[in-house]
Structure formats: structure tokens, C-alpha cells
């Protein structure tokens, strides 16, 4: 008892005070969710890496399967990255003056939409060339991983759209903008890793 009290004095504690949380609830919750998502994509990527390393004759893509559009996607990825950067400006604009965030936020949404749209165009081309989710593990992992990212991107864009709607109404709080932005940053930052592992 006495040893414990010496390291941790019970009686000389300052009076309890109400403290503000360091990270607002919404943002903290989203960060924890993003950790889970990072592990989800880590699971997909490691599964992909294991299957790829065991491919027959180290042929990747396997014989008879089309090559992925590496260059077009690189260009398209640029739209996504720029969208993420623009969203950072939206955040600083919001801190300066709330209504100033309108244009950068809208621009981020449009650029994100461009990325998802062009990915869709790419998919239709690949499907026409005979790469389907059943045609090989190569095609399976491509559609699985890129599709999982696309679903996350659409979800994050809906979140940004909701934030834009609230901004228009004038009810958007900093915590809400931070929460949906955090998810979009995750979608933007995980993409280069996926591109590197899946396309290259």
C-alpha cells in the first residue's frame, strides 16, 4: 500500500476538471475504423502476393490473360491524388472562413468522381478482352482488390457529398468535415500501394 501511494499520491491530487478530448469523437471513431480498413487491405494484398508468388512458371499475368492498362491508370491515379490535395486546401479554407471551403470541396468531389468513372470505363474494356473474376486468380484478385477500393471510394464520395450538402445549409461542423475527410485521405493514400502491388 505505502509503496504504491508513494509513486501515486492519492491525497495530493488536483481537483477534478472537465477536459476537452484531444481528438473529437467522430474523427477518433473514423481513425479506428481506418485502422481496421488498413488491415483489411493488408489481408487482400498479402493473399494476392502469396498466390502471385506461386503462379505456374512465375507467369504473371498468366498465359492468355490481358495486360492491365498500367499507363492510363497512372494518369487516372493523378486525378485521385490531386483530389486529396485539394481536400487539404478545403480544410484550411474551412478553418479560415466556412464558405470558402465550397469550391475546393466541390473540386475534390468532382476529381474523385472522375477517378471512379474512368476506373469503370477501364473495367468494361478489360471485361471485353476476356478478363473476368472467374477467368483466373489474376483476374479474381484484380477485380476483388480494385473493386473493394472502388466501393470505399464511392462510400467516401457520398460522405463528402453529405458534407457539401451540410456546408450549403451552414450546419457543417469541423468535426464532421474532419471525419469524412479522414476517410477520403485513407482512400487516396491506400491507392498508390494497391496500384504498385496489383498493376506493376
Amino acid at each position: 500500500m505505502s509503496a504504491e501511494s508513494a509513486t501515486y499520491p492519492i491525497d495530493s491530487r488536483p481537483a477534478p476538471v472537465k477536459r476537452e478530448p484531444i481528438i473529437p469523437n467522430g474523427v477518433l471513431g473514423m481513425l479506428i475504423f481506418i485502422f481496421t480498413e488498413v488491415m483489411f487491405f493488408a489481408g487482400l494484398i498479402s493473399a494476392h502476393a502469396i498466390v502471385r508468388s506461386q503462379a505456374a512458371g512465375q507467369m504473371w499475368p498468366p498465359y492468355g490473360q490481358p495486360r492491365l492498362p498500367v499507363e492510363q491508370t497512372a494518369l487516372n491515379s493523378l486525378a485521385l491524388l490531386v483530389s486529396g490535395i485539394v481536400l487539404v486546401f478545403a480544410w484550411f479554407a474551412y478553418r479560415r472562413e466556412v464558405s470558402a471551403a465550397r469550391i475546393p470541396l466541390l473540386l475534390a468531389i468532382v476529381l474523385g468522381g472522375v477517378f471512379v468513372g474512368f476506373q469503370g470505363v477501364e473495367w468494361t474494356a478489360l471485361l471485353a478482352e476476356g478478363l473476368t473474376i472467374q477467368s483466373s486468380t489474376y483476374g479474381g484478385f484484380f477485380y476483388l482488390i480494385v473493386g473493394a477500393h472502388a466501393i470505399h471510394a464511392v462510400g467516401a464520395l457520398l460522405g463528402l457529398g453529405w458534407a457539401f450538402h451540410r456546408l450549403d445549409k451552414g450546419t457543417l461542423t469541423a468535426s464532421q468535415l474532419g471525419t469524412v475527410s479522414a476517410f477520403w485521405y485513407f482512400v487516396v493514400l491506400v491507392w498508390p500501394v494497391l496500384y504498385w502491388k496489383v498493376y506493376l
Partner: protein
Amino acid sequence: MADTAVDVHHGEHAHDDHHGPSGILKYIWSTDHKIIAMQYMFTGMFMAVIGGFMAYVFRMQLAFPGISVPGFGQVSPGEYNALVTNHGSIMIFWVAMPVLIAAFGNYLIPLMIGADDMVFPKINRLSYQVFLLSAIILLVSLFVEGGGFGGAWTSYPPLSASGEYNQTDLGSSLWLAAVAIEFVAFLLGGINFIVTLMNSRAPGMKAYDIPLVCWMIVIASILFMLSVGPLVAGAVMLFFDQTIGTGFYDPARGGDPILWQHLFWFFGHPEVYVVLLPAIGITVDVIATFARKKIFGYKMVLYTAVATGVLSFFVWAHHQFIAGIDPRMANVFTVTTLLISVPIAEMCFVIIATLYGGAIRLTTPMLWALAFMAEFLIGGVTGIFLGASGADIYFHDTYFVLAHFHYTFFPIAIIGTFCGFTYWFPKMFGRMMNDTLGKIHFWGTIIPFNFIFIPLFVLGMGGQHRRIYNYEHFPELAGADMYQLRQIATIALLVMLAFQLVFFYNWFVSLAKGEKAGKNPWKSNTLEWTTESPPPHGNWPKDELPNVYRGPYEYGHPDREEDYWPQNLPS
């Protein structure tokens, strides 16, 4: 709400909810953390009854092959597989997880840290509804064409990947969907627990003033969050293999069936600690209260739990020792597996050191807490043999493994739950449970439990393999001595199940006629005992939310008249 200034939006929501629906809707559509906890608790208990019934049916088949089991009828091989698979799935995913983490977490965290509710009450409500949906899907899967999934709760491909092999096309897909949906529920709940603990604590409650059970549930939630992602990824791949004909786990098409084992156990092994830590937290809190003594080494328990959590991510491949992994790899995982027994042993020593010199009161919850440690110790020690890759080659997939993990999971899911339930029963329902009936139930559960699983250890060492429907077809396993042991285990199970009626009887009688509990029947320190029993909506009157002046385990302080010192008293 602890966040009124920073997060106006969420704050408003929480306050609106205090004028929520009324009448019966109050119990179905409530965002109150206590009601959601009860929903989880009752659903979990309902599922436990189903899981227990399944155990009864297949144990009867094993001890008396071919008999018509009363209440079920004759067990076919397919039904046997479905029963053992769903017994395991239900007991882990629909009993241990919802009761230990969701029910106790929801009930205790806000009350013990002095908050009026969770930070995201609506997400909390959604979490239970998603969980309920998953339970319904699982129960439906037992009755579809072909019957319930029979590929074991670990669901290894290729058996699980194709209806051609498992003969339960629809059942296996529904089972997988139910498990995946259930994870969504715990994801929502876990985010709530972590954020609530970090942001909503009462003024003055510092990190080391948080009761250990709250810490343990939150550390368990973090482990769950970090480990579940790869399994969800694997489950999506398995679901596609089952339904749209991809070949992720099909070696003939370039896939890899062992991949699933890695993804599954990367989640599956931390999962053991996800359910273990809350049970240890409950035990530690109960032991401090009834030993009337401060926990020996609060910080050590906390850091040990964190160490266990970190280590638990590096042991998963001990499930694949005979799946053809590189022996050098097996060596590494043997070392990590044996290492993880160190922090767990440390917790046992902490409990023993807390008991030493305490003024021990052998109430029913205290008996459960002591039994938890004693029985879990047997589970832990037998785990050493399985963690060593050399010994595991012989023990793998025998009843030794089965008895080992029942000696860990039964203390966790059943003993831990009864410990917490009998301890917090006065707070939950406002009345005391009958102590005599409680002790009858305790001994009637613990003694038969050992009679079930010690024979199974012996059978496992005798070479009895798991997942076999009828040992008549294996002459070396069909001797009279082996049948005797099987029958001892089955009869002990019947006795144990019968004694559970005492518990339900005690519960209902105590609800109606039990002695009124008052605010603090156990003379305990933590904040939940400073409010009414049962606590009102919002936990404390608006202007009387507690402040915290000291740690949660100040029992037997020499400067005080009483032997306890509640956290909220200024002096």
C-alpha cells in the same frame, strides 16, 4: 457527454435521445446503453441454450452411437457435422463475443467511467440490430435445404469452398454471411467502446483510475479491430468461391487453400484473447472487491494485457504445424506461442498476490472468479504441449486439443460470464440473487465440467481423433474402456446442463422476491455503485454526474474507518 464544446452535433443527439420512444418500443428501439446491453445479454443466453442443446445431442451420439436422442431423434452423419460446426460457431461468435464484450462492455463502460451513455448511441443501437440479423441468418441456415454448414467452425477450404464437397451449398454460404455480418456489428460496437473510454470519462478520471474491466474490454476491442480485417478479406474471397465460382482457394486453378488457414487464424488466435481479456478483467474486479484489498500491481496487469495483445498477433501459425509449413517457421511460432504464456501466468500471480493477506469473502461471484483462475490454469498449462511443434504433431486434431480449448473457453465464456452476471446482478435488476442457490449452481457446474473434459484429455492421448461421427468404424478406438470414458463425459454434461435450471430458477425468483439491493450492496469502490440500482436513464441525475478523486481499488486503506473508499468521494 464529455464533448459538448468540441462536438456539438453528437452532443445534441445524445440529449435528444433522452426523450426517446416509450412503452414496449423503449426496450426494442432504445439507444440507452443499458438496454442494448440487456438485448445482447439475452440474445447471447438464448444462443447459449441452443449451443448447449447441440452439445447434448452430439455427445449422446458419441457415447451411445446410433440411439435416438431424446428431443432430437437419430443423428445422421451430416447432422452430426452441422451440430459440431454450429456448436463451435455459436459458442464463440454468438455467446462469448456478445455477452463478454458487447453486453458487459455496453453495460459497464459508461457506468464505470461516469458517463451518461456511449458517445454514439445510435451506432450502438445499429450494432445490436446488425448482430440480431446475423443470429437470425445463422439460425435460418440450420433449416435450409441440405441442412446447416458442416465444415467445422474454422471452415477450411476446399471443403467449405464448394457445395460439391460439403453437400450444404446454401447452408455454408449463409453461415459465412452470418459470421461476416456479425463482425460488422462488433466493429460498430468496438469503435463505440474505444471512443467512449477515451473521450467520455468523468472529470478527474485519469488513465490509471479506470477500472481494469473497462481497460480489458477496450484492449480486446482494439485487438478485434486490428485482427478482423484479414479475415473479412478472406471471407469475401471464400464467399466468391462458393457463390460465383472464383478460384482463390482452388489449387487446380492457381489458388491456395492454406491461404485461408493463415487469414482465418490471423484473426482466430487474437480472438482467443479478445474474449479472454474481458473475462480476466471481470475476475480481477471481483477479486479485489471480495478480497477487500487493492489489486496487486494495477499497472502491471494493464501492461501485461497490452503485451498479450501484441504477442497474440504472432502466434497464429501454431494452428498450421501439420499443414506443411516450413519447419523453421514452426520453430519461430513455437517460441512465440510459449512466450505468450508468460503474461498470462503473470496475471495469475497478480490474482494470487491480491488474495494473499486479503479479507476474503466467499460470495457466489467470488467463487466463480476463483474457479475461473483455477480452471483456466489447466487450459493454459495443457496449451504448452500443443504450442510445442514437436508434441503437436501427435496431439493435433485429437480430443486433447478439444479438451484444452474447452478448458480455456469454458472458463472464459461460461465461468467469466456467471462471475460478472452474479456480481452485477444487483445493479442490473435492483435485487440480490439468492446466495445458497447461487452456490448450488456453482458447484453443480464446476464439478461436472471437470468430469466432462478430463476424460477427453485421456481419450485424446489415447489417439481419439476429432470430428468423427461414430467410433464403431475404428476398431482401435471402439474398446469398452474408451466408451466408458465417453459415457462419463456425456453423463457429466447432462448433470451440468440440468444444474443450469437452478440458475434460471434463481434468476426469476430473485427478480420477483430477492432482497432489495440498494446502491452498493458489495461495498465496492467503482462508480457504477454510486447510482441507483437499476440506474435511471442517463445513469445519474443530470447535475450529479460523479467526479473522480482516486483509483478504483482503494480497499482497506489504513486511514479510514470503512474498508472501502469510493472513487467519487472528495475525501
